[in-house]
């Protein structure tokens, strides 16, 4: 029924998205990009595509990081425009989408400050999609005092909620008679990557709940299935990456960390939770997820994480496999009608496109031979639909 009313509020925003679909690079254009031999050539090629305007002001020999920044800026501009057109539920929904990028930005800032990187450099590397005015204030962070950081800065930001929950959980998980010193130590040992994963997990759960409760029926169906997959993807990633990780030496520790990082939503949770938390080898992980969807098939080709040292550029890693699967699902979701999943899918697919371009730029700037397997490692959005 909500399909009848969808266009009343969100028709225009959706129409814009459908129009932007034409901006995706197609396979022929990817082939042309692969045949470029230098960065200026790549740039002049991109200037003939939809990315024309965002690159014109730059030098031909554009640095890869700047290229990424420009492409992201364009995506952010498009997204800003859509957000400006959105009303009611949709605008809240779009805001939720942004939180993911904000988390990334905040963690990147923290990481950068810890490594004593200049604030200007950090600010210029911010993903424009997740920009918010308070982000500069992160500079007041002293040492590893995340609690203070939260109190001084993040409390006013949209992602403050997640950060608070994260702090609560990390302190709760400590042993009973903890002292201030213990907490300090805990923060000191904490890796930014860990913070990122936990924050994202919380965001995902929150977003999932939001989608389930507030969205119209069609949008809910579309999004829930996408988010479930994303949660599963995260779970599998966490387990996979923790297999053979030397920092997590005891079984108990592995289990608690995994438990903390794995989202409590998705198709794997809670049925397979016990199995996957205990999985110590790739085979065990495969066994744990075999009952759900086609995950077993996906994991079939993944290389063994225990032989991580042998990986090189050409290895098709788990991430590649998963991104491929993700892309397929998003492309399908994009073709759905009257659903907010379109916006989500668009954002994800555009991100993939930017990843592709940056990857190709990287390959080109390293002057790798054209028969190098790395050239094949791009996932072209919408290419799955044609097969």
């Amino acid at each position, binding site marked *: 029924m909500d399909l009848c009313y969808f266009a009343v509020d969100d028709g225009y925003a959706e129409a814009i998205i459908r129009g932007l679909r034409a901006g995706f690079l197609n396979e022929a254009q990817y082939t042309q990009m692969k045949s470029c031999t230098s960065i200026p*050539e790549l740039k002049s090629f991109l200037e003939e595509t939809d990315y024309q305007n965002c690159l014109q002001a730059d030098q*031909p020999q554009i640095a890869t990081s700047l290229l990424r920044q420009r492409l992201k800026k364009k995506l952010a501009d498009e997204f800003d425009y859509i957000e400006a057109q959105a009303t009611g539920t949709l605008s809240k929904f779009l805001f939720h989408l942004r939180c993911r990028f904000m988390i990334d930005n905040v963690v990147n800032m923290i990481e950068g400050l810890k490594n004593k990187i200049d*604030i200007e450099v950090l600010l210029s590397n911010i993903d424009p999609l997740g920009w918010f*005015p*308070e982000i*500069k*204030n992160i*500079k*007041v962070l*002293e040492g590893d005092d995340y609690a203070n950081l939260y*109190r*001084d*800065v993040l*409390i*006013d930001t949209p992602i403050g909620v997640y950060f608070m929950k994260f702090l609560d959980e990390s302190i709760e998980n400590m042993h009973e008679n903890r002292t201030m010193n213990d907490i300090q130590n805990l923060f000191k040992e904490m890796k930014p990557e860990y913070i990122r994963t936990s924050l994202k997990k919380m965001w995902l759960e929150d977003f999932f709940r939001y989608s389930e409760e507030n969205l119209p029926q069609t949008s809910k169906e579309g999004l829930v299935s996408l988010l479930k997959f994303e949660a599963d993807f995260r779970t599998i990633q966490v387990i996979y990456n923790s297999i053979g990780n030397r920092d997590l030496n005891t079984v108990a520790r592995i289990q608690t960390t995994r438990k903390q990082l794995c989202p409590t939503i998705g198709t794997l949770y809670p049925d397979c939770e016990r199995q996957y938390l205990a999985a110590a080898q790739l085979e065990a992980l495969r066994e744990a997820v075999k009952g759900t969807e086609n995950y077993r098939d996906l994991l079939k080709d993944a290389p063994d994480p225990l032989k991580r040292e042998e990986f090189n550029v050409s290895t098709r890693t788990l991430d590649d496999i998963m991104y491929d699967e993700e892309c397929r699902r998003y492309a399908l979701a994009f073709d759905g009608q009257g659903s907010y999943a379109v916006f989500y899918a668009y954002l994800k697919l555009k991100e993939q496109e930017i990843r592709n371009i940056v990857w190709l730029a990287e390959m080109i700037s390293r002057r790798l031979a054209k028969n190098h397997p790395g050239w094949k490692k791009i996932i072209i959005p919408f290419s799955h639909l044609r097969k």
Partner: protein
Amino acid sequence: MFRSEVMSFYQLLIPRESSYMVMNHLGSLDSLMIIDQNKDNLNRPFNYCITRCDDMMCKIEKLNKCLQDIGLIPEHIDDFKLLEQQYELKSHTYLNDLEALINHKHQQILDQVQKIEQMKQKRQFTIESKKAMIFARKQLGGAYFLSKSSSDLNLDEQPENKPLHGGMIPSQKFTHFVGIINAQEYHVFARAIFRITKGNFMMYNELLDQENELVKFISNRMCFLLFFPSQSVQSETFRKIKKLCETFKVDHVRLPISEDQWDQRYNQYENDTIEIEKLISFTQDLIKSILTPLISGEPTIQYIRNFIIKEKLLYENLNKLKIQPSVFIGLLWIKSSKIDQIEKCFRKIKEINPNLVLPQPRQLKTPRTPPTSFALNQFNKLFQLITDTYGVPRYREINPSIFSIITFPFLFGVMFGDIAHGLLLLSFGLYLSITKKFSPRTIQKETRKQLIQQGTMKVTGNEDIDNINKNSSLQLLYDLRYMLILCGGFAAYCGLIYNDFFALQLDIFGTCLFQTDCVYPFGIDPMFAENLNFSNSYKMKLSIIIGYFQMTLGLLCLGLNSYNQRNLISLFIVFPVKLCFFSLTIGYMAIIIFIKWNTKFMDPGAAPSIISTMVDMWMHDGYVDMQLYSNQSQIQEYVIIIASLCIPIMLFVPMFHDLYKNSKQQIVEDEFVQVSQEDREEEHIQVEKESNGDIVVHHLIETIEFVLGCISNTASYLRLWALSLAHSQLASVFFDLILSGSINEAQAPWQIIMFPLFLIITLGVLLCMDAMECFLHALRLHWVEFQSKFFKGDGYQFEVFSFTQAMQLQNKI
């Protein structure tokens, strides 16, 4: 102009070392087109030269902008040929010299501009600091200077200070801080301070107003005075606030400690400002002295700019050549009338530089279709554009735009027929072409004048930019001026025939309605013209007759084209048969109309209707209900038989011919493979292979289209009547509703009020909207009804390799 110019195909083998020289001279011939042989190659050999030229152009535009800012505008160049002759002597290394010059100037200007920017910033900071100082003094009160300490102060000693909020321990030490921040960031900053100090803070702020117009583009700034509890500079809050200030780029202002110091600081700021102003004006003079040689010196900026335009075009065309180790192979089309110029040009090169190895021109036969080129001038340019928009004529095809020069305004006139409206259009067109006020050259000159004025007055405003934009839209009308003159003239002429003047009937010669032996000398008798029944029937018939003649013209063009292409089947079978069929159907109708016009019927009811005559003729095999002339029935029977016979001939003869040719071609092709490759050129053309089925379908469709088209196209010409009717009715409705009442009752004041309204509506609706509509319909009649009879329109433009043209385009003339 009737047919496109004859082209010859040449191959040039240009030795690498003389390539620049040769291309340089070829570009000034204005009569050849170089075929692009590297179309799909992204890595063209001279790309780097083109990017260099682009770079220089960019820099020149920037310099031009700087020149504009100081009111120095270079003189526009009118004579490009002269310029070209000067350039001819320069070698390709001249570009390097110019590049060095431009880069040098550009860098110099950039440095100075940067310096000015820095100084402006410094000045702004000084002004702001001064203001912030005054602001802080106002807030802190005079007592502040009595206290001994500078950075810390005890608030207890300042009774007149504003009361602070509760929870504050009086003895606690306070730190204060004065700074300047971007106004839009103030709120984020204040909130961050709130969090860091846990609410224990006071902050006063004031927006700094910008007095100086030079800094008005910089965003608003705000100064603030912040108090917060802090024991020492080492405390955590202090450190955090300091960090925060760094990220927000807060300019910290140190307050003077005593009254003396205050005065001293104040004076210092004043002096600094004056000094910086002096420096700025000095630097501006310096910029002027750097830029002036570009206007008055040698070479001038326009000279350089045009040279680069030329150079860029040259390299673009060099890119089109096929590159081989020691020679460049160029394939080119040249107007056959200009062939001798190539030789002449080579001789000239030889004179200039006897040591150079000259290229070898060789005329070749080629299967490629040559490009289409017409000699254009200001007058026929527009009509050619109308045709080209539909399709560029095929090589050596009859150019329909020649006919449309007259037929187009005529059809427009038939639809727009009104003496007054026509005369208005005509006079507007004449005004445009006589005053030349909106010609690109005049506009350019005026813009230049404006810019000079603007620059010397140093006034930057947006109104001038608007002005320029407005001119560009009038420029479009300027291009249409000859069209307006012709259309207006024909509309006035047709208006005379219709006897319409603002939809009123002019009784110039005295009506003949109730007199015997009297014929109204020109146009329709005013008493008749008022009668809608009469004018409808008259205009309807007129449209059919006009349609018949225009389409017959189209068919004749088909015949001429077939003759020109030596297409015998088309010339001797298709063309006459089509003409015969068309004349027997629509032509016969036109003849009946003439007969009816010339017959006098005593009783109007006895006059046969043209439509029913035509319908009866085709439905009942020549049956005649009311006879128009003797033997009508017999003649009509013949007409039907002959016309019906035409259709199969039209269909089968060319079809069988093509089928035969197709089967023969296949045999030839098989043989052709065995023929040695020597005679063939390196290029291949694809021979379109059609299956026999395709040919049959193609001819079937063509025949059906023609037969049905005869009727539907003729019906389409009825739009002439419909639009003319709509035009005159609209005009008369406006007149009746707005003016006639007051005129009839002779109310002068009412007339005075109503007349402007009438004028505006006439101008807006009739002269703008209706003229546009009539234009579009005339366009359609030409594109579809007329051109479909003969016009193929699948040629391609001759893209002349001409420096003059490129320079003209870039200078917008």
